[in-house]
């Protein structure tokens, strides 16, 4: 039987260990803590349990964000090239990339649905205040416009010259460019206008990032296809330049709500993605931009970075939803 004093000392030691564990999220002198225990108490919450539900989207959605950006911006580049008398082969490739994207994107989105057979319910209503509803309509419209553009372009280039086809080509190209810009940017609005703090607090940055990513990827695909022209070089420079600025901005700005952008799996991936899209692609262009290999490398860097970035942002959303303290602190501050 232990004496009272000895018992008290043991109890005090236990209290001390608990207190240290709550402050440092680590048991002093103990084994490496397993997932989630002990939890660091950064403020009041209900046992540190998530106050929000994390996104349930699977791998198809970030891939869709990536491909949608490429398809949209490719159509946009195709329109600009047609407008400013670019090479017909370049315009043809842009239009086909847009159409191919428009064909793959719905498949990815439908695969992610909990009830894929009900995908047509997406077009049951038109809700301006729902980015998801708008997005379904934007994708449907883009597909139609891209198809019209490709159809008329191929007919005209095969000698079926007809004023109707010419005006329909311009209609297709213009509308595909407009809906393409929407397709590449609405996905940023989609995640920006949610209850997930790291997304909603970056809602102004995300559209710029997604559009720039889409631009760099589309230009990169053109370069990889052999169009090593000044225009794609300029677009590559612009995209990786803007991405470098975004990367520096994210690194410099220290907000508690942005923790998932710096720490954990999402933070590491986003940092790698940012380096590839920004400084790496930019430096490759600066130093080896005059040789084809350098431009191929820069384009590949940018494409990989852009793809990783989409996954990182979705993972950051998951981490953000599971941090009640960051959410409460944000709401108390506002």
């Amino acid at each position: 039987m232990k004496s009272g004093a000895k018992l008290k000392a043991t109890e005090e030691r236990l209290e001390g260990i608990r207190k240290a564990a709550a402050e440092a999220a680590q048991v002093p002198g103990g084994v490496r803590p397993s997932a989630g225990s002990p939890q660091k108490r950064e403020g009041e919450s209900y046992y540190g349990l998530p106050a929000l539900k994390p996104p349930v989207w699977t791998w198809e959605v970030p891939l869709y964000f990536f491909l949608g950006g490429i398809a949209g911006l490719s159509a946009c580049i195709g329109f600009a090239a047609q407008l400013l008398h670019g090479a017909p082969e370049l315009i043809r490739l842009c239009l086909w990339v847009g159409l191919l994207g428009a064909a793959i994107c719905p498949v990815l989105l439908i695969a992610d649905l909990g009830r894929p057979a009900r995908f047509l319910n997406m077009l049951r209503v038109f809700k301006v205040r729902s980015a998801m509803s708008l997005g379904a309509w934007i994708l449907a419209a883009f597909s139609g416009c891209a198809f019209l553009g490709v159809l008329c372009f191929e007919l005209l280039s095969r000698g079926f010259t007809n004023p109707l086809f010419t005006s329909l080509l311009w209609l297709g190209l213009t509308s595909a460019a407009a809906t393409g810009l929407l397709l590449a940017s609405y996905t940023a609005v989609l995640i920006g206008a949610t209850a997930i703090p790291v997304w909603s607090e970056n809602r102004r940055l995300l559209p710029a990032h997604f559009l720039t990513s889409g631009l760099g990827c589309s230009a990169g695909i053109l370069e990889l296809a052999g169009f090593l022209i000044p225009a794609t070089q300029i677009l590559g420079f612009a995209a990786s330049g803007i991405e470098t600025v975004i990367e520096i901005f994210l690194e410099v700005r220290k907000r508690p709500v942005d923790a998932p952008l710096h720490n954990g799996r999402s933070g590491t991936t986003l940092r790698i993605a940012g380096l590839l899209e920004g400084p790496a692609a930019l430096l490759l262009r600066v130093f080896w931009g005059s040789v084809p290999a350098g431009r191929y490398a820069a384009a590949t860097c940018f494409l990989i970075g852009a793809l990783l970035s989409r996954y990182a942002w979705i993972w950051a959303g998951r981490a953000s939803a599971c941090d009640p303290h960051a959410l409460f602190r944000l709401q108390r501050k506002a």
Partner: protein
Amino acid sequence: MAVSAFLTDASLCIGCKACEVACKEWNELPDDGFEWSGHSYDNTRALGASTWRHVLFLEQKQSMGSQLAGINEPFRWQFLSDVCKHCANAGCLEACPTGSIVRTEVGSVFVQPDICNGCGYCVVSCPFGVIEKRPEDGRAFKCTFCYDRQKAGLIPACAKACPTESIQFGELEVLKQRGKKRVQDLQERGYSDARIYDPQETSVGGIHAFSVILGEPEAYNLPPAPEVPTAYLKSAWTSAFISAAVIFAIICAAFAF
């Protein structure tokens, strides 16, 4: 029809979980797994696709009201039965792209299971972390406010089962008055931290399932200032349009060279 509401009073809840059981039974909900959480007597943890009432168990180092005994080592139990808030401006309803989520004639927010295609956008649009996708089913589920029972003139199963009238069901305006009165009474009796949790000043614009709680809402995992995500649309779209214009200008400049 009048707007239906829940007033859930934490100061009356005894943590019996009769509401959880009644809800599961009436709505034929699957179990949430049989695991020990280690968080007091709460093994349910949170609201979800198969948990539409959730009783929270708080063990706080605070004295209870004007208690006299044991104030040297203050301690109190707090229980609260949490539920979908049926917001005046509901994030899930605004986000739903299929029109599956609707506002009913009793003012509640209802997911039509025959329309939902499981896109998951409502899940990230709920500022209270309530609605969830059930993986084995694929669709999103949450409290129906016992719409079927209300249609038949019955009160929701949880309120019916509550043995202490901690869950009160009635007309929104009536319950609001009752809640105010209850907080006043509690404060007069020494429960100085009694308050109503009903975020009316934010874009959510009030909730139809509000509560009387003791202490800060964070302790109950209730967000202190929830916003309906549509409030972010304007700034996000503005940024999208400006960015799109800049990007298009860059593309034109590149080809004009």
